[in-house]
C-alpha cells in the first residue's frame, strides 16, 4: 500500500489529489474525447432465477423474487461494465468515489454499482427490518468475504471497498437469500455500466490508445482496443453470448 501511494504522489505533478493506494491520479484534464457504444447479447437469454420470499413478506413482497443475472431486452445487454484497463492520470473520480447502495423493499439499488477501489461505500437500510449485507471479492473461482455487516434498523453505515486484487464484487444479504447485486471496483473513473438499451458512454478521456474491457458478472469478459481523439467519440461495441 505505502509503495503505491509514494508512486502516486511522485506522478502527481499538476494533480489536485493523491488518489491513494491504487496508482491513479485524478485532476484537471484537457483534450479529451469519449468512448461510446452498445453491449449486446446474442441468442436467447437464460431464464431468471426464481427464489421464494419466505420472510418479511410485508416488506419484501409475496411469492417469488425474480433474480435476473443476464438482463437482455431486444438483444441489448444491461449491466455490463465497460472500462479502461490502464490509465495513470485523468479526470476526477466523481460518483464512484462516494458510492451509495440502498436496501429498499428488500432489493439492492442499484443492482450494478461502480465504486472506486478503497472508497467508503455508504450502505443504507431503508426498510424496517434487519438487512445484513455480505460482499465478496471474486478472485478467479473463489469469492473472498470483504465485509459482512448487520443493520437491524433504518439508517446508513460505511464500509471500505478494500479489494485485494480483483474488480468484481458480489453483493448479497445474509438475511434475505433473494437479494443479489454486483459491484465493480474500479482502478480509475473511466468505467460505465451499460443501460437497459445496452448503451454506455465514457467521457473525459485524454486522447490516446486504450485497452477497453467489457465485464459481465456471469458472461465473462471481452477486450477491445480503442483510439480516442480529442473532441471526438470513439465507438465500440461488445457482443456476449451464453
Amino acid at each position, binding site marked *: 500500500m505505502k509503495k503505491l501511494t509514494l508512486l502516486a504522489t511522485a506522478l502527481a505533478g499538476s494533480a489536485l489529489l493523491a488518489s491513494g493506494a491504487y496508482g491513479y491520479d485524478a485532476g484537471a484534464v484537457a483534450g479529451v474525447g469519449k468512448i461510446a457504444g452498445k453491449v449486446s447479447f446474442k441468442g436467447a437469454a437464460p431464464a431468471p432465477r426464481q427464489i421464494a420470499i*419466505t*420472510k*418479511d413478506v410485508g416488506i419484501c413482497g409475496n411469492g417469488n423474487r425474480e433474480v435476473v443475472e443476464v438482463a437482455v431486452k431486444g438483444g441489448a445487454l444491461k449491466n455490463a461494465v465497460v472500462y479502461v484497463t490502464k490509465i495513470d492520470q485523468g479526470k476526477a473520480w466523481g460518483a464512484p468515489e462516494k458510492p451509495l447502495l440502498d436496501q429498499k423493499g428488500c432489493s439492492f439499488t442499484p443492482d450494478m454499482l461502480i465504486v472506486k477501489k478503497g472508497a467508503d461505500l455508504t450502505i443504507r437500510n431503508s426498510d424496517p*427490518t*434487519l438487512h*445484513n449485507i455480505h460482499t465478496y471479492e471474486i478472485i478467479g473461482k473463489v469469492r473472498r468475504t470483504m465485509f459482512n455487516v*448487520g443493520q*437491524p434498523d433504518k439508517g446508513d453505515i460505511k464500509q471500505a471497498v478494500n479489494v485485494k486484487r480483483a474488480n468484481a464484487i458480489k453483493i448479497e444479504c445474509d*438475511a434475505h437469500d433473494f437479494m443479489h447485486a454486483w459491484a465493480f471496483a474500479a482502478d480509475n473513473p473511466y468505467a460505465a455500466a451499460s443501460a437497459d438499451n445496452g448503451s454506455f458512454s465514457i467521457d473525459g478521456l485524454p486522447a490516446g490508445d486504450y485497452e477497453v474491457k467489457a465485464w459481465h458478472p456471469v458472461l465473462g469478459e471481452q477486450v477491445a482496443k480503442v483510439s480516442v481523439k480529442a473532441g471526438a467519440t470513439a465507438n465500440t461495441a461488445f457482443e456476449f453470448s451464453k
Partner: protein
Amino acid sequence: MTHRNLKHLTAALALAGLASAAFAQSPTPAPALQPLPEPKFNKAQADLGRYFFFDVRMSGDAALSCATCHDPAKGWADGLPLAKGYPASEYFRNAPTLLNATLKNRFMWDGRLDGSDAGTLVRDMMTEAHTMNMDGRLAQERVKQVPEYVAMWQTAVKKGDDPNGMRIFNIIGEFVKSLRSQNAPIDKFLKGDATALSAQAKAGFDVFNGKGNCVACHNGPVGSDGKLHNTGVPENPAVTAEPLRHITLLRHYSTSGMPNYMNTHTDVGSYAITKNPKDKGKFATPSIRDLKYTAPYMHNGMFATLDEVIDFYDKGGGAGSVLKPLGLSGTEKQALKTFLTEAMSGDPVTVDIPKSPAYQARTFGKN
C-alpha cells in the same frame, strides 16, 4: 412471599385507614393495593444489563434486542395487540410491560416461570427459538469480543472474571429488577397523602375496592394476586389467520408436552403447562400499574382501550369466565377509568439508551 405481603398489608391498612368493603368480617387480612417497595438490585450489574438489554447482538441474527418488544417509549411493552417474534416467526400473545415485572409472583401470561427468578425469565426469552433464538454460549463469545463489555464485567461481577453465558442472563435480570414505576399518585395516597388523588380518582378507587371488586384479584404492590384466572377474554382471530403466529402457538403447545396439540387452535393459557383441564383458559393476573402507557390489554391485546376493558368486566367477562356482572353506572365506569389512568399510572420511565459498542479484534490465541 406470604410473610412479606402480610407485613406490607398491615402497614398499608394502618396508614391508609381504608375499609375493604367486600371482605369485612373475614379472619385473614382483606386484599388491598399496596405501595411499591424500594427496588433491590445490583447497581453495577444492572448498568451492564442495560447495555445488553438494548444490544441486538443478544439475539441470534442480531435483528432485535429485548427493547424491541419492551420499548421504553411504549411503556416498556410494544403497543401491539400481539408481539412480533424473531425474524420469520410471529408471536401469539401480547408483550406485557417490564415495569415492576419482578414484583410479580409469576412471569409470562401462563404463569409458567417463577417471579423471584429474573435470570431464568431472561434466559427463556433470549434462547427461545421464536423470540431471540440466541445460543447462550455464542452470546458469551459475542460479549467477550466487545472490550467495553469485558471491562464493565470486571466491575459488575468481579475482577478477573470472564463473561460467561449463564451470568449474562442474570445481569440482564438485574436491569429488569431496576425498572419500577415512578411517582404514581396511588403510592403517595396509600402512604397517607389524601390530596394525592383527585375526587374522581378517589371515587374510582371506591368502585375498585367495592362495587367493582377489582381488588379481589388486583391487589398487592402491582395490583396482581399472582394467581391464574379465567375471565373469558375472546380469542384474537389474528392468531389463527396468520400462519406465522399459529405456528408459534402450536409449537409452544408441542414443546410444552401438551396432548392433542395439532387440534388445539385456541389459547388455552396455563393448561398447556399444567395439563389440568380445569386450567383451560386461565391466565396470570397482570399488573394494573402504568396502564396509561401499555395499551392494548389482555393476553392477546383484544382490548384497545380501558373503556373496552371496563365494559368487559361490567358484563361479567366472556364465555367460561369466573366473573359476575357488576352493574356499573356510566359515572362509576368513568371514575374507575380515571383511577386506573391517573392514580395507578406514574411518570414515563426512561433510561439512557446506550449506543452498543462495536466488536474489536482480540489477540488471537489469548482467550
